[in-house]
């Protein structure tokens, strides 16, 4: 459809009166340059920061499609995903483009509610090699369908306080050889500075249980829904967490709580393990006053882990007339290096597009990290991370394993007992 066919007709010149001239003048003054409202609207449902990234792209989109407006519907993270679950279940109020956090892509992928992006007109397969491999693989469901396109990723990294390590006579490489070395260094840091190695031991455990996972392997369940919790991977994670607790190396603080943030501000936390986006969180609101004191390094024991990320999906039952346009918008957001780079610059969204990681200026010094060129570390991590298999009970398993860890650390339950109990709990649900 051409743009001109959708424009409204102009006023009839034969009936020009003083009133119509005045009205036309007023309209021109109120809306200079606006000739017509866009005839169509693409709705994008997103959560905070992703909504801003999409809004930032609207001028570029409007140049391509002046007749298609973008309506960004933003909800808070949990509300957004609850709303998307409801929309998919009833096929009512479906957006044309749906932003999904990585864990929800896995959760939604086998439901059949999202379009298979391998099919025409999307044909995402021909661009597969342009994406970070694990990010693309993570969107493939059991039937081999690709249900979403990756836009940003969170390569795992270790952030550490350079000044606190120096006071303990340590350098970052002392923490890296193994997780035991990391804890040994924590003991020295605690002794020399009083600071905890980490704010919340769960963060450490979450990393440990992902350590050493092979491509396509599940975290809590294998592909036949067998429970993988009572295995050496979890035993070691629990043992080292207990060692950390016994040496008083963790702050016992709920992640994202006021106390957790305050500990960073008061120099009481020496390291943090998380996605590269954690730098932006620390810099913007958690502890902006600690600017220049932090540095980034690869995770100990050559652990390559992903921390979330964002995808765009097209609901299967959204308006078919707008699906091609929806895909065009997704292509612009995910395959245009300039848009990907802009999202990195403005919102710290680490690009899932490989070309954007090679763009000039990508590896600029980061002020919060004392001028360190840390993005090259994260680029390397991104290329080494492999996709893990998602199981629909992963969310429950995560909560149950957290409880098991608490029972070990707080109530003195034996590790074997705690993991046997949680395995039994997961078996009850594994095949639901």
């Amino acid at each position, binding site marked *: 459809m051409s743009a001109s066919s959708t424009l409204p007709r102009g006023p009839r010149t034969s009936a020009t009166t003083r009133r119509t001239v005045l009205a036309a003048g007023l309209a021109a003054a109120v809306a200079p340059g606006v000739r017509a409202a866009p005839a169509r609207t693409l709705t994008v449902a997103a959560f905070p920061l992703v909504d801003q990234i999409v809004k930032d792209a609207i001028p570029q989109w409007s140049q391509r499609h002046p007749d298609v407006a973008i309506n960004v519907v933003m909800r808070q993270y949990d509300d957004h995903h609850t709303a998307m*679950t409801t929309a*998919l*279940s009833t096929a009512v109020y479906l957006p044309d483009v749906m932003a999904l956090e990585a864990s929800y892509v896995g959760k939604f992928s086998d439901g059949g*509610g999202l379009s298979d992006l391998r099919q025409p007109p999307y044909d995402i397969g021909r661009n597969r090699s342009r994406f970070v491999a694990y990010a693309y693989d993570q969107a493939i469901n059991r039937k081999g369908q690709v249900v979403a396109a990756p836009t940003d990723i969170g390569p795992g990294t270790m952030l550490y306080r350079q000044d606190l390590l120096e006071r303990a006579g340590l350098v970052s490489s002392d923490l890296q050889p193994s997780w035991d070395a990391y804890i040994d260094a924590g003991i020295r840091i605690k002794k020399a500075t009083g600071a905890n190695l980490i704010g919340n031991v769960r963060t450490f455990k979450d990393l440990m249980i992902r350590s050493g996972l092979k491509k396509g392997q599940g975290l809590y369940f294998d592909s036949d829904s067998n429970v993988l919790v009572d295995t050496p991977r979890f035993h070691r994670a629990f043992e080292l967490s207990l060692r950390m607790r016994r040496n008083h190396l963790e702050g*016992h603080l709920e992640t994202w709580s006021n106390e957790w943030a*305050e500990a960073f501000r008061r120099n009481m936390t020496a390291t943090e393990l998380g996605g590269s986006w954690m730098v932006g969180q620390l810099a913007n609101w958690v502890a902006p006053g600690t600017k220049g004191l932090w540095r980034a390094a690869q995770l100990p024991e050559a652990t390559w882990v992903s921390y979330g990320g964002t995808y765009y999906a097209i609901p*299967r039952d959204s308006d078919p007339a707008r699906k091609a346009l929806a895909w065009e918008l997704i292509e612009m957001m995910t395959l245009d290096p300039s848009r990907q780079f802009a999202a990195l610059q403005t919102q710290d969204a680490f690009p899932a597009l490989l070309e954007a990681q090679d763009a000039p200026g990508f590896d600029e010094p980061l002020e919060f990290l004392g001028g360190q060129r840390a993005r090259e570390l994260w680029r390397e991590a991104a290329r080494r991370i492999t996709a893990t298999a998602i199981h629909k009970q992963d969310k*429950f398993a995560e909560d149950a394993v957290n409880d098991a860890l608490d029972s070990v650390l707080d*109530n003195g339950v034996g590790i074997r007992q705690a993991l046997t109990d949680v395995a039994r709990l997961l078996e009850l649900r594994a095949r639901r």
Partner: protein
Amino acid sequence: MSMRRPSFLRLSPKWAPYVFISPFLILFGVFGVFPLGFSLYLAFQSWEPTGGLKAMEFVGLANFAFALKDPWFWTALKNTLWLAIASGVPQHLVALPLAAFIHTSFKRLRDGVIAVYFLPYITSTVAIAIMFNALFSQDYGMINAALAQAFGMSHIDWLHDPGRIKPAIAFIVFWRYVGFNTVLYLAAMQTIPGELYEAATLDGAGRWRQFFHITLPGIKPMIFFGVTLSVIGGLQLFEEPFILTGGKGGPQQAAMTSATYLFREAFAFNDFGGASAMSWLLFVVVALLTWATNVAFRTRKGPQ
């Protein structure tokens, strides 16, 4: 000049009652009966919600069997009963004497005093949860600061210690609803004829005896009403624990009530069938306990 309405706008007396009652019936049908029926239907289905309504599959009683075997369902039910008792019983034990005290001791200031007690009930739950989150904060909260000042106690981790979070939530629920119950009892006390108290005073009955032999029997129907509301409300407790724990049940699920678990089961764990079955099991528990309350308050007939 009188204007006659067109015939299609005229309402015959035969249909008028149905038309006038229809707004309620329509709303009740849409927001009451339909969800009830749908949840009963869902309780017998296995459903991956993101697959749409067509993705449902009949599974018979499997969801009920799963719920009864699920340890978290029982944990949630135990937590709910604990919280219902720990927050509900003190509400009434405090509200009764408080209402009697306000009834007898305040004259002109009475409405103002009642308003103050009633205020927590009409305050937004979210605001209350945020406020208590700050008050219960381990290192920077006023409650710990006051306890340290008064008794030299070390800081308590109210919200992240499984042994402490339940009393903290019970306290919030108590604080929120004690005023509501006080207003109920006060209203009931105002209906007791003053002559009974005058006669009792002449007979030499003190305030305690008057309270136990006139006030309490006089407001028994209201106590029954208040206790029934507390039983139902306590068993459906959702907002306070949900907001205080970020919807995650708190440490070792110590603050997970049945209602918060149902929500998580559906929206976090994507198991709408299981959640629906659990909600009907919870309904059975609520109905049984309401019936037990009714039995407990039933007037016993003396020997003939």
